Protein backbone atom coordinates (compact mmCIF):
# COMPACT_ATOMS: atom_id res chain seq x y z
CA UNK A 1 0.00 0.00 0.00
CA UNK A 2 2.86 2.34 0.74
CA UNK A 3 3.57 2.83 -2.93
CA UNK A 4 5.30 6.08 -3.79
CA UNK A 5 4.76 5.88 -7.51
CA UNK A 6 3.22 9.09 -8.69
CA UNK A 7 1.84 8.05 -12.03
CA UNK A 8 -1.85 8.88 -12.22
CA UNK A 9 -2.97 5.36 -13.01
CA UNK A 10 -1.35 3.90 -9.92
CA UNK A 11 -2.63 6.45 -7.48
CA UNK A 12 -6.06 5.96 -8.88
CA UNK A 13 -5.89 2.22 -8.53
CA UNK A 14 -4.63 2.38 -4.97
CA UNK A 15 -7.30 4.73 -3.75
CA UNK A 16 -9.82 2.56 -5.51
CA UNK A 17 -8.78 -0.54 -3.54
CA UNK A 18 -7.82 0.61 -0.09
CA UNK A 19 -8.49 -2.67 1.72
CA UNK A 20 -6.04 -5.32 0.58
CA UNK A 21 -4.34 -6.33 -2.62
CA UNK A 22 -5.46 -9.92 -1.98
CA UNK A 23 -9.12 -9.09 -2.46
CA UNK A 24 -10.31 -8.76 -6.02
CA UNK A 25 -13.65 -9.00 -7.70
CA UNK A 26 -14.41 -11.79 -10.09
CA UNK A 27 -14.98 -10.51 -13.57
CA UNK A 28 -18.50 -10.42 -14.82
CA UNK A 29 -17.63 -9.55 -18.38
CA UNK A 30 -14.69 -11.91 -18.92
CA UNK A 31 -15.74 -15.24 -17.46
CA UNK A 32 -15.54 -18.82 -18.66
CA UNK A 33 -16.18 -20.56 -15.36
CA UNK A 34 -16.71 -18.05 -12.60
CA UNK A 35 -14.62 -15.05 -13.62
CA UNK A 36 -11.61 -15.71 -11.37
CA UNK A 37 -9.08 -15.63 -14.21
CA UNK A 38 -10.69 -12.52 -15.67
CA UNK A 39 -10.59 -10.82 -12.27
CA UNK A 40 -6.96 -11.74 -11.68
CA UNK A 41 -6.02 -10.62 -15.15
CA UNK A 42 -7.66 -7.29 -14.51
CA UNK A 43 -5.92 -7.00 -11.15
CA UNK A 44 -2.46 -7.82 -12.50
CA UNK A 45 -2.91 -6.06 -15.80
CA UNK A 46 -2.32 -9.16 -17.96
CA UNK A 47 -4.54 -10.92 -20.45
CA UNK A 48 -6.96 -13.33 -18.81
CA UNK A 49 -6.02 -16.01 -21.34
CA UNK A 50 -2.48 -16.08 -19.89
CA UNK A 51 -3.90 -16.57 -16.41
CA UNK A 52 -6.07 -19.42 -17.67
CA UNK A 53 -3.12 -21.13 -19.36
CA UNK A 54 -1.18 -20.84 -16.10
CA UNK A 55 -4.04 -22.47 -14.18
CA UNK A 56 -4.29 -25.34 -16.69
CA UNK A 57 -0.52 -25.98 -16.65
CA UNK A 58 -0.47 -25.89 -12.86
CA UNK A 59 -3.39 -28.35 -12.83
CA UNK A 60 -1.05 -30.98 -14.34
CA UNK A 61 1.49 -30.44 -11.52
CA UNK A 62 -0.29 -32.55 -8.93
CA UNK A 63 -3.55 -30.58 -9.22
CA UNK A 64 -1.93 -27.42 -7.83
CA UNK A 65 -3.78 -25.38 -10.43
CA UNK A 66 -7.17 -26.70 -9.30
CA UNK A 67 -6.41 -25.93 -5.66
CA UNK A 68 -5.02 -22.50 -6.57
CA UNK A 69 -8.19 -21.78 -8.54
CA UNK A 70 -10.41 -22.74 -5.59
CA UNK A 71 -8.35 -20.64 -3.16
CA UNK A 72 -8.45 -17.66 -5.50
CA UNK A 73 -12.19 -18.07 -5.92
CA UNK A 74 -12.80 -18.11 -2.16
CA UNK A 75 -10.68 -14.97 -1.71
CA UNK A 76 -12.40 -13.11 -4.51
CA UNK A 77 -15.33 -10.75 -4.12
CA UNK A 78 -18.73 -11.15 -5.63
CA UNK A 79 -18.91 -9.21 -8.90
CA UNK A 80 -22.55 -8.38 -8.31
CA UNK A 81 -21.91 -4.91 -6.86
CA UNK A 82 -19.93 -3.71 -9.84
CA UNK A 83 -22.27 -2.28 -12.32
CA UNK A 84 -20.32 -3.17 -15.46
CA UNK A 85 -22.57 -3.86 -18.40
CA UNK A 86 -22.43 -7.37 -19.74
CA UNK A 87 -20.35 -7.39 -22.89
CA UNK A 88 -21.78 -10.64 -24.23
CA UNK A 89 -24.01 -13.47 -23.18
CA UNK A 90 -21.65 -15.84 -21.41
CA UNK A 91 -24.08 -18.73 -21.17
CA UNK A 92 -22.76 -20.70 -24.14
CA UNK A 93 -19.06 -20.42 -23.26
CA UNK A 94 -19.70 -21.07 -19.60
CA UNK A 95 -21.74 -24.13 -20.42
CA UNK A 96 -19.04 -25.51 -22.68
CA UNK A 97 -16.38 -24.86 -20.01
CA UNK A 98 -18.54 -26.52 -17.39
CA UNK A 99 -19.22 -29.49 -19.66
CA UNK A 100 -15.51 -29.96 -20.36
CA UNK A 101 -14.73 -29.85 -16.64
CA UNK A 102 -17.37 -32.50 -15.93
CA UNK A 103 -16.09 -34.63 -18.80
CA UNK A 104 -12.52 -34.31 -17.50
CA UNK A 105 -13.58 -35.31 -14.01
CA UNK A 106 -15.42 -38.33 -15.42
CA UNK A 107 -12.34 -39.40 -17.36
CA UNK A 108 -10.21 -39.04 -14.22
CA UNK A 109 -12.72 -41.01 -12.14
CA UNK A 110 -12.80 -43.75 -14.77
CA UNK A 111 -9.00 -43.89 -14.83
CA UNK A 112 -8.67 -44.29 -11.09
CA UNK A 113 -11.43 -46.91 -10.98
CA UNK A 114 -14.29 -44.98 -9.35
CA UNK A 115 -16.61 -46.01 -12.14
CA UNK A 116 -19.92 -47.81 -12.52
CA UNK A 117 -18.62 -49.63 -15.56
CA UNK A 118 -19.15 -48.54 -19.16
CA UNK A 119 -22.40 -50.47 -19.30
CA UNK A 120 -24.07 -47.99 -16.85
CA UNK A 121 -21.75 -45.04 -16.97
CA UNK A 122 -21.82 -43.99 -20.61
CA UNK A 123 -25.61 -44.17 -21.11
CA UNK A 124 -26.03 -42.31 -17.82
CA UNK A 125 -23.63 -39.62 -19.03
CA UNK A 126 -25.52 -39.20 -22.30
CA UNK A 127 -28.89 -39.07 -20.54
CA UNK A 128 -27.57 -36.48 -18.05
CA UNK A 129 -26.24 -34.35 -20.88
CA UNK A 130 -29.67 -34.53 -22.49
CA UNK A 131 -31.38 -33.47 -19.27
CA UNK A 132 -28.95 -30.57 -18.90
CA UNK A 133 -29.64 -29.38 -22.43
CA UNK A 134 -33.41 -29.47 -21.86
CA UNK A 135 -33.02 -27.68 -18.57
CA UNK A 136 -30.85 -24.94 -20.02
CA UNK A 137 -33.09 -24.46 -23.03
CA UNK A 138 -36.23 -23.94 -20.99
CA UNK A 139 -34.45 -21.64 -18.58
CA UNK A 140 -33.03 -19.34 -21.26
CA UNK A 141 -36.53 -19.28 -22.76
CA UNK A 142 -37.92 -17.47 -19.70
CA UNK A 143 -41.59 -16.63 -19.88
CA UNK A 144 -41.83 -19.49 -22.30
CA UNK A 145 -45.60 -19.40 -22.42
CA UNK A 146 -45.78 -15.75 -23.30
CA UNK A 147 -43.00 -16.10 -25.83
CA UNK A 148 -44.86 -18.86 -27.55
CA UNK A 149 -48.16 -17.03 -27.41
CA UNK A 150 -46.68 -13.94 -28.96
CA UNK A 151 -45.16 -16.12 -31.67
CA UNK A 152 -41.51 -15.26 -31.14
CA UNK A 153 -38.56 -16.65 -29.27
CA UNK A 154 -40.08 -19.99 -28.33
CA UNK A 155 -37.97 -21.94 -30.78
CA UNK A 156 -34.62 -22.28 -28.97
CA UNK A 157 -36.46 -23.79 -26.03
CA UNK A 158 -38.28 -26.24 -28.26
CA UNK A 159 -35.04 -27.07 -30.09
CA UNK A 160 -33.14 -27.85 -26.95
CA UNK A 161 -36.12 -29.77 -25.65
CA UNK A 162 -35.97 -31.92 -28.77
CA UNK A 163 -32.18 -32.44 -28.74
CA UNK A 164 -32.14 -33.10 -25.00
CA UNK A 165 -35.06 -35.50 -25.23
CA UNK A 166 -33.30 -37.33 -28.05
CA UNK A 167 -30.13 -37.65 -25.94
CA UNK A 168 -32.06 -38.95 -22.96
CA UNK A 169 -34.00 -41.48 -25.02
CA UNK A 170 -30.77 -42.51 -26.72
CA UNK A 171 -28.98 -42.99 -23.42
CA UNK A 172 -31.85 -44.98 -21.96
CA UNK A 173 -32.18 -47.26 -24.98
CA UNK A 174 -28.45 -47.82 -25.09
CA UNK A 175 -28.63 -48.81 -21.46
CA UNK A 176 -31.49 -51.19 -22.19
CA UNK A 177 -29.83 -52.87 -25.17
CA UNK A 178 -26.58 -53.26 -23.23
CA UNK A 179 -28.27 -54.80 -20.22
CA UNK A 180 -30.83 -56.89 -22.08
CA UNK A 181 -28.65 -59.94 -21.86
CA UNK A 182 -28.24 -59.92 -18.10
CA UNK A 183 -31.86 -59.20 -17.15
CA UNK A 184 -34.78 -61.28 -18.28
CA UNK A 185 -38.58 -61.23 -18.55
CA UNK A 186 -40.63 -59.23 -16.09
CA UNK A 187 -37.62 -57.70 -14.40
CA UNK A 188 -36.37 -56.11 -17.57
CA UNK A 189 -39.83 -54.78 -18.44
CA UNK A 190 -40.22 -53.25 -14.98
CA UNK A 191 -36.75 -51.84 -15.20
CA UNK A 192 -37.49 -50.35 -18.59
CA UNK A 193 -40.64 -48.67 -17.26
CA UNK A 194 -38.84 -47.38 -14.19
CA UNK A 195 -35.90 -46.04 -16.17
CA UNK A 196 -38.12 -44.37 -18.74
CA UNK A 197 -40.28 -42.77 -16.05
CA UNK A 198 -37.20 -41.59 -14.20
CA UNK A 199 -35.74 -40.19 -17.40
CA UNK A 200 -38.93 -38.33 -18.22
CA UNK A 201 -39.12 -36.93 -14.71
CA UNK A 202 -35.54 -35.69 -14.96
CA UNK A 203 -36.16 -34.16 -18.36
CA UNK A 204 -39.51 -32.53 -17.80
CA UNK A 205 -39.53 -32.13 -14.02
CA UNK A 206 -37.76 -28.75 -13.78
CA UNK A 207 -39.63 -27.46 -16.79
CA UNK A 208 -43.04 -28.44 -15.36
CA UNK A 209 -42.03 -26.98 -12.01
CA UNK A 210 -41.11 -23.63 -13.54
CA UNK A 211 -44.28 -23.64 -15.58
CA UNK A 212 -46.34 -24.21 -12.43
CA UNK A 213 -44.54 -21.32 -10.71
CA UNK A 214 -45.33 -19.01 -13.58
CA UNK A 215 -48.96 -20.05 -13.44
CA UNK A 216 -49.15 -19.36 -9.70
CA UNK A 217 -47.66 -15.90 -10.17
CA UNK A 218 -50.08 -15.14 -12.91
CA UNK A 219 -53.05 -16.34 -10.89
CA UNK A 220 -51.98 -14.24 -7.90
CA UNK A 221 -51.79 -11.12 -10.04
CA UNK A 222 -55.15 -11.82 -11.55
CA UNK A 223 -56.75 -12.29 -8.12
CA UNK A 224 -55.21 -9.05 -6.94
CA UNK A 225 -56.57 -7.04 -9.81
CA UNK A 226 -59.97 -8.70 -9.45
CA UNK A 227 -60.02 -7.74 -5.77
CA UNK A 228 -59.27 -4.15 -6.67
CA UNK A 229 -62.09 -4.13 -9.19
CA UNK A 230 -64.43 -5.64 -6.59
CA UNK A 231 -63.49 -2.96 -4.08
CA UNK A 232 -64.17 -0.20 -6.57
CA UNK A 233 -67.48 -1.73 -7.55
CA UNK A 234 -68.52 -2.19 -3.96
CA UNK A 235 -67.66 1.37 -2.97
CA UNK A 236 -69.51 2.64 -5.99
CA UNK A 237 -72.64 0.63 -5.28
CA UNK A 238 -72.73 1.39 -1.58
CA UNK A 239 -70.91 4.46 -0.37
CA UNK A 240 -71.28 6.67 -3.43
CA UNK A 241 -74.96 5.82 -3.76
CA UNK A 242 -75.55 6.63 -0.10
CA UNK A 243 -73.66 9.90 -0.37
CA UNK A 244 -75.88 10.84 -3.31
CA UNK A 245 -78.99 9.96 -1.29
CA UNK A 246 -77.73 11.99 1.66
CA UNK A 247 -77.26 15.04 -0.57
CA UNK A 248 -80.79 14.66 -1.87
CA UNK A 249 -82.19 14.32 1.66
CA UNK A 250 -80.22 17.22 3.11
CA UNK A 251 -83.46 18.76 4.39
CA UNK A 252 -84.30 15.87 6.69
CA UNK A 253 -81.73 15.28 9.43
CA UNK A 254 -83.45 12.13 10.65
CA UNK A 255 -83.43 10.55 7.22
CA UNK A 256 -79.79 11.57 6.76
CA UNK A 257 -78.75 10.08 10.07
CA UNK A 258 -80.50 6.85 9.24
CA UNK A 259 -78.86 6.65 5.81
CA UNK A 260 -75.46 7.34 7.30
CA UNK A 261 -75.95 4.78 10.02
CA UNK A 262 -77.02 2.10 7.61
CA UNK A 263 -74.06 2.79 5.35
CA UNK A 264 -71.66 2.82 8.25
CA UNK A 265 -72.91 -0.53 9.48
CA UNK A 266 -72.74 -2.08 6.04
CA UNK A 267 -69.26 -0.77 5.30
CA UNK A 268 -68.00 -1.83 8.68
CA UNK A 269 -69.26 -5.36 8.36
CA UNK A 270 -67.89 -5.55 4.83
CA UNK A 271 -64.47 -4.30 5.91
CA UNK A 272 -63.98 -6.09 9.18
CA UNK A 273 -66.81 -8.58 9.54
CA UNK A 274 -68.27 -8.96 12.97
CA UNK A 275 -65.97 -10.08 15.80
CA UNK A 276 -67.29 -13.56 15.22
CA UNK A 277 -68.84 -13.63 11.80
CA UNK A 278 -69.78 -17.22 12.46
CA UNK A 279 -73.57 -17.12 12.25
CA UNK A 280 -73.89 -20.06 14.61
CA UNK A 281 -72.68 -18.01 17.59
CA UNK A 282 -74.55 -15.79 19.99
CA UNK A 283 -72.41 -12.73 19.41
CA UNK A 284 -73.06 -12.66 15.65
CA UNK A 285 -76.77 -13.40 16.07
CA UNK A 286 -77.24 -10.52 18.52
CA UNK A 287 -75.40 -8.07 16.29
CA UNK A 288 -77.48 -9.14 13.34
CA UNK A 289 -80.63 -8.70 15.41
CA UNK A 290 -79.58 -5.21 16.51
CA UNK A 291 -78.72 -4.20 12.95
CA UNK A 292 -82.08 -5.24 11.59
CA UNK A 293 -83.94 -3.31 14.30
CA UNK A 294 -81.82 -0.20 13.72
CA UNK A 295 -82.60 -0.41 10.06
CA UNK A 296 -86.32 -1.04 10.41
CA UNK A 297 -87.11 1.53 13.11
CA UNK A 298 -84.54 4.32 12.81
CA UNK A 299 -83.23 3.88 16.34
CA UNK A 300 -79.80 3.27 17.82
CA UNK A 301 -79.43 -0.13 19.45
CA UNK A 302 -76.43 -0.10 21.77
CA UNK A 303 -75.36 -3.71 22.19
CA UNK A 304 -72.92 -4.97 24.76
CA UNK A 305 -72.15 -8.66 24.84
CA UNK A 306 -70.01 -10.30 27.46
CA UNK A 307 -68.84 -13.80 26.65
CA UNK A 308 -69.95 -15.80 23.66
CA UNK A 309 -71.39 -19.25 23.10
CA UNK A 310 -72.81 -21.58 20.49
CA UNK A 311 -76.41 -21.02 19.50
CA UNK A 312 -78.83 -23.70 20.60
CA UNK A 313 -82.59 -23.75 21.08
CA UNK A 314 -82.42 -21.84 24.36
CA UNK A 315 -80.00 -19.17 23.25
CA UNK A 316 -82.00 -18.72 20.06
CA UNK A 317 -85.08 -18.17 22.23
CA UNK A 318 -83.18 -15.52 24.19
CA UNK A 319 -82.15 -13.71 21.02
CA UNK A 320 -85.71 -13.86 19.64
CA UNK A 321 -87.15 -12.52 22.89
CA UNK A 322 -84.57 -9.72 22.91
CA UNK A 323 -85.55 -8.85 19.37
CA UNK A 324 -89.18 -8.58 20.38
CA UNK A 325 -88.39 -6.51 23.47
CA UNK A 326 -86.10 -4.15 21.54
CA UNK A 327 -88.67 -3.78 18.76
CA UNK A 328 -91.33 -2.90 21.35
CA UNK A 329 -89.01 -0.34 22.84
CA UNK A 330 -88.26 1.11 19.41
CA UNK A 331 -91.93 1.44 18.52
CA UNK A 332 -93.60 2.36 21.83
CA UNK A 333 -91.05 4.01 24.08
CA UNK A 334 -90.77 7.29 22.16
CA UNK A 335 -86.98 7.41 22.45
CA UNK A 336 -84.52 6.58 19.73
CA UNK A 337 -82.05 4.67 21.84
CA UNK A 338 -82.32 1.12 23.12
CA UNK A 339 -79.69 -0.71 25.17
CA UNK A 340 -79.22 -4.45 24.86
CA UNK A 341 -76.92 -6.23 27.25
CA UNK A 342 -76.30 -9.97 27.13
CA UNK A 343 -73.96 -11.87 29.39
CA UNK A 344 -73.15 -15.48 28.70
CA UNK A 345 -71.84 -17.38 31.69
CA UNK A 346 -71.13 -21.06 32.02
CA UNK A 347 -74.56 -22.06 33.31
CA UNK A 348 -76.64 -18.99 32.71
CA UNK A 349 -77.48 -16.42 30.08
CA UNK A 350 -78.74 -13.06 31.29
CA UNK A 351 -80.14 -10.45 28.95
CA UNK A 352 -81.41 -6.91 29.54
CA UNK A 353 -83.25 -4.73 27.08
CA UNK A 354 -83.68 -1.22 28.30
CA UNK A 355 -85.00 2.14 27.14
CA UNK A 356 -85.46 5.49 28.85
CA UNK A 357 -88.81 6.22 27.23
CA UNK A 358 -92.43 6.62 28.31
CA UNK A 359 -92.70 3.39 30.21
CA UNK A 360 -95.97 1.68 31.03
CA UNK A 361 -97.69 -0.20 33.82
CA UNK A 362 -96.81 -3.85 33.17
CA UNK A 363 -99.61 -5.28 35.30
CA UNK A 364 -102.33 -3.23 33.61
CA UNK A 365 -101.31 -4.07 30.07
CA UNK A 366 -100.62 -7.76 30.43
CA UNK A 367 -103.51 -8.85 28.23
CA UNK A 368 -103.34 -6.11 25.67
CA UNK A 369 -99.79 -6.77 24.58
CA UNK A 370 -99.55 -9.96 22.62
CA UNK A 371 -95.87 -9.25 21.96
CA UNK A 372 -94.92 -9.42 25.60
CA UNK A 373 -97.14 -12.37 26.41
CA UNK A 374 -96.34 -14.62 23.47
CA UNK A 375 -93.03 -13.62 22.06
CA UNK A 376 -91.20 -12.82 25.24
CA UNK A 377 -92.77 -14.58 28.21
CA UNK A 378 -94.09 -17.62 26.36
CA UNK A 379 -90.89 -18.23 24.44
CA UNK A 380 -88.59 -17.88 27.45
CA UNK A 381 -90.74 -19.78 29.93
CA UNK A 382 -91.24 -22.69 27.51
CA UNK A 383 -87.46 -23.08 27.51
CA UNK A 384 -87.16 -22.97 31.27
CA UNK A 385 -86.15 -19.31 31.71
CA UNK A 386 -87.69 -16.38 33.52
CA UNK A 387 -88.80 -12.92 32.44
CA UNK A 388 -88.97 -9.82 34.60
CA UNK A 389 -90.31 -6.53 33.34
CA UNK A 390 -89.60 -3.36 35.28
CA UNK A 391 -91.39 -0.27 34.11
CA UNK A 392 -93.44 2.63 35.31
CA UNK A 393 -94.95 5.62 33.53
CA UNK A 394 -92.24 8.07 32.60
CA UNK A 395 -89.39 5.89 33.78
CA UNK A 396 -88.59 3.80 30.77
CA UNK A 397 -88.70 0.06 30.68
CA UNK A 398 -86.31 -2.77 31.33
CA UNK A 399 -86.91 -6.37 30.33
CA UNK A 400 -84.72 -8.90 32.08
CA UNK A 401 -84.36 -12.43 30.75
CA UNK A 402 -82.55 -15.28 32.44
CA UNK A 403 -82.05 -18.64 30.85
CA UNK A 404 -80.16 -21.60 32.27
CA UNK A 405 -77.72 -23.30 29.92
Amino acid at each position, binding site marked *: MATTKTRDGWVHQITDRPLSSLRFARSQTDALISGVAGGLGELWGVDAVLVRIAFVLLAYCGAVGVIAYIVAWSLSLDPGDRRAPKARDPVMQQSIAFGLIVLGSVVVLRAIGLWLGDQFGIPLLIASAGAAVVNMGTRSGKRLRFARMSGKGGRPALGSLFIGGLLVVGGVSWFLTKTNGSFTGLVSVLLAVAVTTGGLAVVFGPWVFRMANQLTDERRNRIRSEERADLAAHLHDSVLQTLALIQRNAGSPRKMASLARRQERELRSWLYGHPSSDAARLDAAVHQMADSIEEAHDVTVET*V*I*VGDCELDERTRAVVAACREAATNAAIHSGTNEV*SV*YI*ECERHLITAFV*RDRGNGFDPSANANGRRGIVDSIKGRIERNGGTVMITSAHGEGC*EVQLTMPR
Partner: protein
Amino acid sequence: MTRVFLVDDHRLFLAGVRSELQGKVDLVGEASDVDTAVQQIRATKPEVVLLDVHMPGGGGKAIIEAVAETHPDVKFLALSVSDAAEDVIALIRAGARGYVTKTIDTEELVRAIERVNAGDAFFSPRLAGFVLDAFAGEIEVPADPEVDQLTVREKEVLRLIARGYTYKEVAKRLNISVKTVETHVSAVLRKLQLSNRHQLTQWASDRRLV
Protein backbone atom coordinates in the same frame (compact mmCIF):
# COMPACT_ATOMS: atom_id res chain seq x y z
CA MET B 1 -64.68 25.54 32.20
CA THR B 2 -62.46 22.57 31.55
CA ARG B 3 -59.47 23.27 29.32
CA VAL B 4 -59.69 20.70 26.54
CA PHE B 5 -57.34 19.77 23.71
CA LEU B 6 -58.51 17.76 20.68
CA VAL B 7 -56.42 15.19 18.82
CA ASP B 8 -57.88 13.48 15.76
CA ASP B 9 -56.42 12.78 12.35
CA HIS B 10 -59.78 13.38 10.65
CA ARG B 11 -60.13 17.12 10.19
CA LEU B 12 -63.82 16.80 9.44
CA PHE B 13 -64.41 15.10 12.72
CA LEU B 14 -62.28 17.66 14.58
CA ALA B 15 -64.47 20.39 13.17
CA GLY B 16 -67.60 18.51 14.26
CA VAL B 17 -66.43 18.01 17.84
CA ARG B 18 -65.24 21.61 18.00
CA SER B 19 -68.63 23.03 17.06
CA GLU B 20 -70.33 20.59 19.41
CA LEU B 21 -68.23 21.53 22.42
CA GLN B 22 -68.01 25.27 21.73
CA GLY B 23 -69.11 27.22 24.79
CA LYS B 24 -69.36 24.11 26.95
CA VAL B 25 -65.64 23.60 27.49
CA ASP B 26 -62.59 25.77 26.92
CA LEU B 27 -60.99 24.48 23.73
CA VAL B 28 -57.31 25.38 23.94
CA GLY B 29 -56.06 23.71 20.80
CA GLU B 30 -56.15 20.81 18.41
CA ALA B 31 -53.76 18.67 16.42
CA SER B 32 -53.96 15.93 13.85
CA ASP B 33 -50.60 14.21 14.11
CA VAL B 34 -48.45 12.81 16.87
CA ASP B 35 -45.57 15.32 16.89
CA THR B 36 -47.73 18.44 16.74
CA ALA B 37 -50.03 16.99 19.38
CA VAL B 38 -47.23 16.33 21.88
CA GLN B 39 -45.67 19.72 21.25
CA GLN B 40 -48.96 21.65 21.47
CA ILE B 41 -50.19 19.79 24.54
CA ARG B 42 -46.94 20.62 26.32
CA ALA B 43 -47.30 24.25 25.28
CA THR B 44 -51.01 24.78 26.07
CA LYS B 45 -51.17 22.56 29.18
CA PRO B 46 -54.81 21.47 28.87
CA GLU B 47 -56.60 19.62 31.65
CA VAL B 48 -58.12 16.97 29.41
CA VAL B 49 -57.05 15.67 26.00
CA LEU B 50 -59.73 14.08 23.81
CA LEU B 51 -57.76 11.52 21.87
CA ASP B 52 -58.73 9.47 18.83
CA VAL B 53 -57.89 5.80 19.26
CA HIS B 54 -56.88 5.35 15.66
CA MET B 55 -54.04 7.74 15.07
CA PRO B 56 -51.81 6.48 12.28
CA GLY B 57 -48.98 4.25 13.42
CA GLY B 58 -50.43 3.47 16.85
CA GLY B 59 -49.92 7.14 17.66
CA GLY B 60 -52.46 7.50 20.48
CA LYS B 61 -50.32 5.45 22.80
CA ALA B 62 -47.20 7.40 21.80
CA ILE B 63 -48.89 10.71 22.61
CA ILE B 64 -50.03 9.56 26.05
CA GLU B 65 -46.58 8.26 26.93
CA ALA B 66 -44.71 11.32 25.66
CA VAL B 67 -46.99 13.75 27.49
CA ALA B 68 -46.98 11.71 30.70
CA GLU B 69 -43.20 12.08 30.87
CA THR B 70 -43.32 15.85 31.19
CA HIS B 71 -46.91 16.60 32.23
CA PRO B 72 -48.24 13.70 34.27
CA ASP B 73 -51.33 15.65 35.38
CA VAL B 74 -52.80 15.95 31.86
CA LYS B 75 -55.68 13.49 31.58
CA PHE B 76 -56.72 11.57 28.49
CA LEU B 77 -60.15 10.49 27.31
CA ALA B 78 -60.15 8.08 24.37
CA LEU B 79 -62.65 8.60 21.59
CA SER B 80 -63.23 6.16 18.77
CA VAL B 81 -65.48 4.75 16.08
CA SER B 82 -63.88 1.40 16.62
CA ASP B 83 -65.49 -1.51 18.38
CA ALA B 84 -62.24 -3.37 18.68
CA ALA B 85 -61.58 -4.18 22.32
CA GLU B 86 -57.83 -4.55 21.93
CA ASP B 87 -57.36 -1.00 20.61
CA VAL B 88 -59.34 0.51 23.44
CA ILE B 89 -57.78 -1.62 26.15
CA ALA B 90 -54.32 -0.69 24.85
CA LEU B 91 -55.00 3.04 25.24
CA ILE B 92 -56.47 2.55 28.70
CA ARG B 93 -53.43 0.55 29.72
CA ALA B 94 -51.22 3.32 28.37
CA GLY B 95 -52.95 5.74 30.73
CA ALA B 96 -56.22 7.03 29.27
CA ARG B 97 -58.87 7.47 31.96
CA GLY B 98 -61.89 6.62 29.91
CA TYR B 99 -63.34 5.66 26.58
CA VAL B 100 -66.36 6.91 24.65
CA THR B 101 -67.60 6.11 21.17
CA LYS B 102 -67.93 8.88 18.60
CA THR B 103 -71.71 8.51 18.49
CA ILE B 104 -71.97 9.80 22.07
CA ASP B 105 -74.26 12.83 22.47
CA THR B 106 -72.85 16.21 23.43
CA GLU B 107 -74.20 16.33 26.95
CA GLU B 108 -72.78 12.92 27.77
CA LEU B 109 -69.42 13.86 26.25
CA VAL B 110 -69.19 17.01 28.38
CA ARG B 111 -70.07 14.96 31.45
CA ALA B 112 -67.37 12.42 30.55
CA ILE B 113 -64.79 15.22 30.15
CA GLU B 114 -65.68 16.68 33.53
CA ARG B 115 -65.57 13.31 35.21
CA VAL B 116 -62.15 12.52 33.78
CA ASN B 117 -60.92 15.97 34.77
CA ALA B 118 -62.06 15.35 38.35
CA GLY B 119 -59.68 12.40 38.42
CA ASP B 120 -62.34 9.75 37.98
CA ALA B 121 -62.74 7.25 35.20
CA PHE B 122 -65.40 7.30 32.54
CA PHE B 123 -66.65 4.01 31.21
CA SER B 124 -69.06 3.82 28.30
CA PRO B 125 -71.34 0.76 28.24
CA ARG B 126 -69.08 -0.78 25.63
CA LEU B 127 -65.92 -0.35 27.69
CA ALA B 128 -67.72 -1.82 30.70
CA GLY B 129 -68.53 -4.83 28.52
CA PHE B 130 -64.89 -5.19 27.43
CA VAL B 131 -63.73 -5.04 31.02
CA LEU B 132 -66.24 -7.65 32.17
CA ASP B 133 -65.04 -9.85 29.32
CA ALA B 134 -61.40 -9.34 30.24
CA PHE B 135 -62.00 -10.18 33.88
CA ALA B 136 -64.54 -12.94 33.16
CA GLY B 137 -64.19 -16.32 34.78
CA GLU B 138 -62.30 -17.38 37.81
CA ILE B 139 -58.58 -17.69 37.60
CA GLU B 140 -57.06 -20.41 39.70
CA VAL B 141 -54.14 -18.62 41.28
CA PRO B 142 -54.33 -14.87 40.79
CA ALA B 143 -50.77 -13.58 40.63
CA ASP B 144 -51.92 -10.46 42.41
CA PRO B 145 -55.42 -10.78 43.92
CA GLU B 146 -55.51 -7.02 44.48
CA VAL B 147 -55.59 -6.22 40.77
CA ASP B 148 -56.32 -9.49 39.00
CA GLN B 149 -59.94 -9.82 40.12
CA LEU B 150 -62.96 -7.58 40.34
CA THR B 151 -64.97 -7.48 43.54
CA VAL B 152 -68.62 -8.48 43.49
CA ARG B 153 -69.63 -4.84 43.88
CA GLU B 154 -67.38 -3.68 41.08
CA LYS B 155 -68.91 -6.30 38.81
CA GLU B 156 -72.42 -5.13 39.75
CA VAL B 157 -71.51 -1.55 38.92
CA LEU B 158 -69.94 -2.51 35.60
CA ARG B 159 -72.93 -4.67 34.64
CA LEU B 160 -75.29 -1.77 35.23
CA ILE B 161 -73.11 0.57 33.18
CA ALA B 162 -72.97 -2.02 30.42
CA ARG B 163 -76.78 -2.15 30.54
CA GLY B 164 -76.87 1.55 29.73
CA TYR B 165 -77.30 3.03 33.22
CA THR B 166 -75.77 6.41 33.94
CA TYR B 167 -73.68 6.80 37.11
CA LYS B 168 -76.63 8.46 38.76
CA GLU B 169 -78.95 5.61 37.85
CA VAL B 170 -76.40 3.07 39.05
CA ALA B 171 -76.17 4.87 42.37
CA LYS B 172 -79.94 4.93 42.77
CA ARG B 173 -80.28 1.29 41.84
CA LEU B 174 -77.61 0.11 44.28
CA ASN B 175 -78.52 2.59 47.02
CA ILE B 176 -75.08 4.12 47.07
CA SER B 177 -73.85 7.63 46.31
CA VAL B 178 -72.63 8.74 42.88
CA LYS B 179 -69.25 9.34 44.52
CA THR B 180 -69.09 5.67 45.54
CA VAL B 181 -69.93 4.60 41.98
CA GLU B 182 -67.07 6.78 40.77
CA THR B 183 -64.74 5.22 43.32
CA HIS B 184 -65.64 1.73 42.12
CA VAL B 185 -65.11 2.65 38.48
CA SER B 186 -61.75 4.26 39.27
CA ALA B 187 -60.72 1.12 41.12
CA VAL B 188 -61.64 -0.95 38.06
CA LEU B 189 -59.64 1.41 35.85
CA ARG B 190 -56.62 0.94 38.09
CA LYS B 191 -56.95 -2.83 37.93
CA LEU B 192 -57.30 -2.64 34.17
CA GLN B 193 -54.07 -0.68 33.95
CA LEU B 194 -52.09 -2.78 36.38
CA SER B 195 -53.36 -6.31 36.00
CA ASN B 196 -51.36 -8.85 34.10
CA ARG B 197 -54.26 -11.19 33.72
CA HIS B 198 -54.04 -13.57 30.86
CA GLN B 199 -56.76 -12.01 28.71
CA LEU B 200 -55.42 -8.49 29.06
CA THR B 201 -51.86 -9.39 28.22
CA GLN B 202 -53.07 -11.71 25.51
CA TRP B 203 -54.81 -8.85 23.75
CA ALA B 204 -51.79 -6.69 24.05
CA SER B 205 -49.25 -9.26 22.91
CA ASP B 206 -51.47 -10.46 20.06
CA ARG B 207 -51.23 -6.97 18.63
CA ARG B 208 -47.61 -6.57 19.74
CA LEU B 209 -48.50 -3.65 21.94
CA VAL B 210 -46.41 -4.53 24.96
